């Protein structure tokens, strides 16, 4: 893990509301793994804390993140220009790849809104031989990103794109029609969505891993502020930033 000052290489609107910010880092591009995140200081003074962003893509020595403006930090980030520098810490957290093994036939990626962020990079490194299905849900079409994903099915709450309904409805609908053998779910998105999908997965005997989100003060294990309660076992809590962000969904209290 390193703290680096990197230069913004490009900004691209993936949708009206979602921006892809690309910067250059030899270090990160060499070691970053799918599912990991970086922690960005959007400005020297305000807001105080860094803002965590999943690694969306690594292309040569270029790294990118995707985000939508939801508050102070993302607004300031969106205001930056190509050539500006940003202060980042990373890579942080564990990787989806640690949970890819021979014990399943089909990987099921489930993304809610901006939770799609880690799956593009994950898809890139996903073993060629294995089956992969990707379900992307969002409130409306401007919040849907498909870039770099495989076998994508889309659901929107307002029906403006793809299936009209929640991503879980979409999954049920699809699984009623198609069979995918032993499945392993990988989730990222709003907690409520992940809880619902995880329950579904478990009911269907599938294993499930989720990348959790919470407010973080440090992102590197210093503050102990990002605790998630465990469903059982020795420790009552674990640190999302360091022991996660990816957890087996039955091991944590979502």
């Amino acid at each position: 893990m390193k703290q680096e000052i990197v230069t913004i290489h490009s900004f691209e609107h993936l949708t009206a509301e979602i921006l892809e910010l690309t910067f250059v880092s030899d270090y990160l591009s060499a070691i970053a793994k799918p599912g990991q995140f970086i922690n960005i200081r959007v400005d020297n003074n305000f807001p105080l804390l860094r803002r965590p962003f999943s690694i969306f893509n690594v292309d040569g020595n270029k790294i990118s993140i995707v985000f939508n403006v939801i508050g102070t930090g993302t607004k300031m980030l969106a205001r930056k220009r190509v050539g500006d520098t940003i202060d980042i810490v990373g890579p942080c957290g564990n990787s989806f790849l640690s949970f890819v093994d021979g014990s399943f036939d089909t990987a099921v990626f489930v993304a809610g809104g901006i939770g799609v962020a880690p799956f593009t990079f994950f898809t890139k490194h996903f073993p060629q031989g294995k089956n992969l299905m990707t379900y992307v849900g969002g409130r409306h079409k401007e919040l849907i990103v498909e870039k770099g994903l495989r076998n994508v099915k889309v659901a929107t709450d307002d029906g403006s794109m793809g299936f009209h309904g929640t991503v879980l409805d979409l999954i049920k609908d699809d699984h009623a029609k198609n069979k995918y053998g032993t499945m392993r779910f990988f989730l990222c998105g709003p907690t409520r969505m992940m809880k619902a999908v995880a329950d579904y997965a478990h009911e269907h005997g599938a294993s499930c891993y989720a990348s959790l989100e919470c407010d973080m003060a440090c992102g590197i294990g210093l503050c102990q502020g990002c605790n998630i309660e465990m469903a059982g076992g020795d420790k009552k809590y674990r640190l999302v930033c360091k022991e996660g962000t990816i957890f087996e969904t039955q091991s944590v209290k979502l």
Partner: protein
Amino acid sequence: MIQESFKLRNVEFKNRILVASGTFGYGDEVPDLVDIAKLGGIMTKSLSMKPRDGNPNPRIAETASGMLNSIGLANIGVHKFIAEKLPTLKRHDTKIIANIAASSVEEYCGVLELLDVQDGVHGFEINVSCPNVKEGGLSFGTDVKLVSLITKELRRRTQKPLIVKLTPNVTHISEFARACEAEGADAVSVINTVIGMAVNINKRSPKIATTTGGLSGPAIKPIALAKVYETVNAVKIPVIGIGGIVSWEDAVEFFIVGASMVQIGTANFINPSTGVTVAEGVKQYCGQNGIDDVSKLVKSLRTNKNVSIVDSWL
């Protein structure tokens, strides 16, 4: 050549910049990010006799130029600390000060005795001021008799530097500093976090699980400076300044007011190497201002006496 070191009792710190308890883990999270050998010392996460899970989540919330936390003294317990963390911590070329938090005088004494025999532990900082646990913590820190008692009992049990960390959440912090001085504390740390609160207006619930938490960061720097001002004008023992330091300029403010050492807390979350850059900056400032020993900066404030309301109760 600028004299940066500071001697507290029998321990020599290479410089006056420390990292604050609970903001630097056990020193093992940051090796690739921070050159720990450039820090004067590390105050460990508060240690208790038994491991503590800490408070439920959410434990933190950002505020304007600050943050609230309610970690609740989550820690692995003194035994595990000695067995698993101290061996690696010891290897760093810096001073290790064990911060102790407990819910009874007996527990304070017990934890200190276990650590006192560890040569890797160079001194103690006693946290009587955690605003996020109900037994012990702040309930001790706001009772001057209890603070006296704890200081007295611990002083009897160690020859290593004994530092008492005070809470700002009292009317007159100077009373507490005087009590610590009277009972033989080698120094006081000023300040721990300020009680604060934030509300999520969509959920209509507190942003942290324990309703209130401890406010830290740049927002509290002016409060910390005022508390240090009050304390240094009340006691002769060294005062360690803490609160909102993110730059060397901030540290210089504390030294000028009268802090003998400073601690970096929240800033570590944003830039883990803040302590190192602060140490370098302070040294440079001294060089540029013809100061050959940081001690000459300490309490060099040019001010009219007795113009502050604070002076009126000293």
